Structure formats: C-alpha cells, structure tokens
C-alpha cells in the first residue's frame, strides 16, 4: 500500500488531462464561431444580404450575396423535399414490411450507413460525368440531384432510429383493430412527427453546407436563380470564391458570407434541438 499515493497522483493527473482535452474540444467550437463572428461582423451590412452582385462586385464594388443565399435555399430546399419523399417510405418499408433481423433489413441499413459516409466529392464527380455524358450543363437541377443522393441516407437513418424507439404495443394495438400495415404506418408517422422534422432539418443543414458536390454540378452565377436548368450561386461556394480573392474588400465579404452561413446553421441546429426534446415528450 506504500504506493497508493503514487497511484492516486496518477489518477489526478489523468483526470486533469481528460479535463484539458474536453475543454480543448469544446473550446474549438467556440473558437471557430468566435473567429467567424469577429472577422465577419465588421463587414456585414443590409446591402450584403439583400442585393445581387453588381458590376465590379469581385473587385470590391457594390452588391451583395443575395443570389447565393437564395440559390442555397432553393437547392437545399428542393433536395430536402425530394430526399424526404424518397426517404420516408424507405424507412417505413424497412421497419414495417421487412421481417426484423432478415438479411434484407440488415444489409440495407448497413448500406445506408456506408452511403452516409461517402464524401460528397465522389457524388459530385459521378454526377458531373453523367451530366457531361447526357450533355446537360452545370445547373441547379444537377446540384439538386447530387445533393438529394447525398441526403437520402441521412433521412433514412434518422427516421429508422426513431421508428425503432416506438413501443411495439402501439403497432400491435393498431393492427389488432384491423388496420392494414400501411394504415399502421400512418399512425406511427404521427407518433414520430417532431422527429421527422428533425430528420428534415438535419438533411437541410447538410445540403446547405455542402460545397464539393455543388462545385462540380451547380456552377455559379451572378443572377438570381430563376430556372432550374441554369447555373445558380450557392452560399458555401460564394464564400470559397471570395476568400481566394486577393482584394481585401472581397475577402471581407467572404467573412460576412461565412457569418450568414454560420447563423443559418445555428438556427437549424437550435430548431433540431428543440424538436428533439419535443419528440421525447410527444406521446399520443
């Protein structure tokens, strides 16, 4: 027992190390947001977010990034809608119609997990070459298709996790009243309603922030997006382009655009959090 002091001391050191790592990891989040706020705030203005680029925008003259904000919202909105339309039936099918523990169920879920990890640049590359092959130029439509593929796994996996938490009794009661599987599924959907919005928001957040997939497929344009077969600007890409400019004003706009994107993401995260806690309380 003579070395008990040494052992306790090493426990203390380990604990301090753990606290330091915890603080540095959480600190990195505040560092990122703090730096973007600090750099972006001096440049943000109403003109920035309400106007499209005007002549000489990229050498520091007037205009704003409204085209990119709108483009991003269109792109993320459309692809999230598509991904939800495709994703909800798939998640329901895997949980309601397929036998639990069957090969189909397990392998599909595994595959969606894996698809979730595939980087967007790969989706972008394949979509780009398909578009070249079909003779479609870079456009909002190309971006929407790419980002939809990217977000389907998110919707499916999130909903699947939710559907798993539904008490089996609810399913059995509904079925014993004579409901078909499809009618039962509708009841379950009502049960996980806040969770569905969580999944949608997660997909939206991923869609609005993605660059690599959009870079190759959506192109860039100074005009407000009007038609789906035309190139459209997106916010992350606007940040990326402006930041690589040597002119300080343009770089400043990149910081301001980054601030706008950060705010959008933070709003999404906060809504997700609220909805998730609502799901916990939400019972029929």
């Amino acid at each position, binding site marked *: 027992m003579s070395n008990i002091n040494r052992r306790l001391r090493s426990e203390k050191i380990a604990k301090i190390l753990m*606290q330091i790592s915890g603080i540095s990891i959480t600190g990195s989040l505040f560092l990122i947001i703090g730096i973007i706020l600090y750099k972006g705030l001096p440049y943000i203005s109403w003109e920035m977010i309400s106007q499209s680029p005007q002549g000489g925008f990229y050498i520091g003259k007037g205009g704003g990034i409204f085209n990119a904000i709108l483009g991003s919202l269109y792109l993320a909105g459309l692809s999230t809608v598509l991904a939800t339309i495709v994703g909800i039936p*798939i998640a329901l099918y895997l949980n309601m119609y397929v036998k639990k523990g069957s090969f189909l169920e397990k392998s599909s879920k595994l595959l969606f997990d894996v698809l979730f990890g595939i980087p967007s640049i790969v989706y972008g590359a394949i979509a780009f070459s398909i578009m070249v092959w079909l003779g479609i130029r870079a456009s909002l439509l190309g971006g929407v298709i790419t980002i939809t593929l990217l977000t389907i796994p998110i919707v499916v996996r999130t909903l699947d996790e939710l559907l798993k938490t539904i008490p089996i009794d609810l399913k059995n009661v509904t079925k014993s009243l004579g409901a078909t599987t499809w009618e039962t599924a509708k009841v379950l959907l009502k049960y996980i309603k806040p969770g569905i919005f969580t999944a949608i928001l997660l997909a939206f957040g991923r869609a609005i922030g993605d*660059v690599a997939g959009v870079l190759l497929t959506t192109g860039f344009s100074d005009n407000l997006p009007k038609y789906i077969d035309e190139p459209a600007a997106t916010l992350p890409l606007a940040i990326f382009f402006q930041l690589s400019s040597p002119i300080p004003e343009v770089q400043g706009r990149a910081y301001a655009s980054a601030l706008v994107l950060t705010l959008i993401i933070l709003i999404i995260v906060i809504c997700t959090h609220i909805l998730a806690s609502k799901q916990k309380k939400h019972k029929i």
Partner: protein
Amino acid sequence: MKLRLLKDSIAKNLSRSLLIISLSVVVLIIIGLALKASPLLDSVNLFSILTEKVWSPQKGNFGFLPFIMGTLWVTFISLIISVPLCILAATYLVEYASDRLRKSVLPLMNVLAAIPPVLYGVWGVLFVVPLISEWIAPIFNVSTTGYSVLAGGIVLAVMIFPIMISIMVEVLKTIPNELKAASLSLGATKWETIQKVVLRKAKPGIIAAIVLAVSRAFGETVAVLMVCGNIPKVPQSLFDAGYPIPALIANNFGEMMSIPLYDAALMFAALLLFVIIFGFNLISRIILNRLEEHA
C-alpha cells in the same frame, strides 16, 4: 376492404422499389467510375499509377503518389491530434462527468458536426494558417506561408472530433457496470479500472470509431483544400504543402476535358476514394453493429 388492401400493397411495392432504386445507386456509382477510369488503367498499369511521383497530365504522366502521400499526411496528423484527445474526453464524459455536464457537452458536439466544411476552411485560413506561420514554424526555425499539411491536419482533427466523441461515448456506455465494480472492489483506483478494464473492453468500438473518422478524413475536400497549399509534390515535413486526393478532383474538374486521359485519371481518383472509404465504413459499421447487438 379491398380498397384498403389495395392501398396497402401499392404502398408496399412503391416503397420497395424506392429502396431498390436508391440502393442500386451504389452499384451505379461503382460501375460508372470504373468505366470512366478504365482508359487510364488500360494504358498505364495500376502499380505505376500508385507509385509514380510525377504528375503532369499534359505530358501524360499520371503519378498518384504525391496525392496519396498528401492524403496520408493530413489524415495521420489529424489522428495524432484527435485520437488521444477524444479518448480522454469521451472517457471523462462517461466515467467522471455529471449528467448535467454530459447533457450540455454532447449537443455542442452536434453543433460542431453541423458546421459545414467551408466554414472550417475559413477558420483554417483565418486562424490555423497564421498560427502556423507566425507561431509554430518559428519555433522550429522554418519559414513557411502556413499553408501546409500541418494546417490541413489540424483543421481535419477538429472536423473529426464530433464523430469520434459521439461514437466513443456510445461505446463506453455499453461497458457493463459489473466489470467496473469487480475491478474497483479489488482495490484498483478508478483510473486503473479505466485503463485496464474499460478501455480494454471498449477497444474494438474505439477502433471502429477511429476507422470511421479516418474515412471521413480521407474524403474531406474543401476545408483541406483551402489550407493545404495544393502543390503536387510528396510532402517531406509538417510544414510542406500537400495535395490530397479529393482536392485534386475538386480543383481540376473544369479543365480536364481538353487533355487525353485526364478525366480518366480524375475518375480513377474518385474510384480510389470510393473504394477505400466504402471498405473502411463497412468494416467499422459491422464492428459497431455487432457491439450494439451484444450490449
């Protein structure tokens, strides 16, 4: 009644076909990439593509070694930084922290996970790059612009924090209390129990989390591209610029059309990424699923 059954079977068949279509995307991607990459593989053999150092598409030299090494450098640096930090922090959250602390830290990790890559890139350019050129490099008597594999590694490390922490926390939670209690009752301190029982038992899960993070790091494109310098040479030190594979694809897609085999080479790069990441993901997901079933 018939109508209701009809509706049911329509819903069933519709959702089944959606499932099949969306899963066949995987097959489609593989076939598409392989077809597009095949001209390169026909004219140069695989081994020399992977080991050649010279990248000059105009002269027909497609050596991928600089890019492979660039990717390995940044991934390796990010792991050196993030693995110990994440293991320590996750252990603290599960074993020591109060419920309240845990419940306030884990949502913050979700925020970190939700930040888009381009914002990490902006942060890298504004903070990490100057930090390296003005503070870290002078310590080693090196002069650099800061755009280096080290910068890429640091940015990536922060990007993979959330995925590692959240999976490690889940894994550590599955360790049965009886095991810990047995060790504690034999007189081991808490830290000794963590070292010799908890972490040992959690090893497969922790490895799975790391593999998952590695595959995330491999595929990360824009954030790394913004801070890495992008010079197609094999990096020799922490402060050299690097050129990871995803950055290669992103930077050159527009201009590849006019040069023969260039598009095949970029498609080969995408195929390489896809195969590696697919494999890594598959392995770690299988490990994690198995752990979940046993828990």
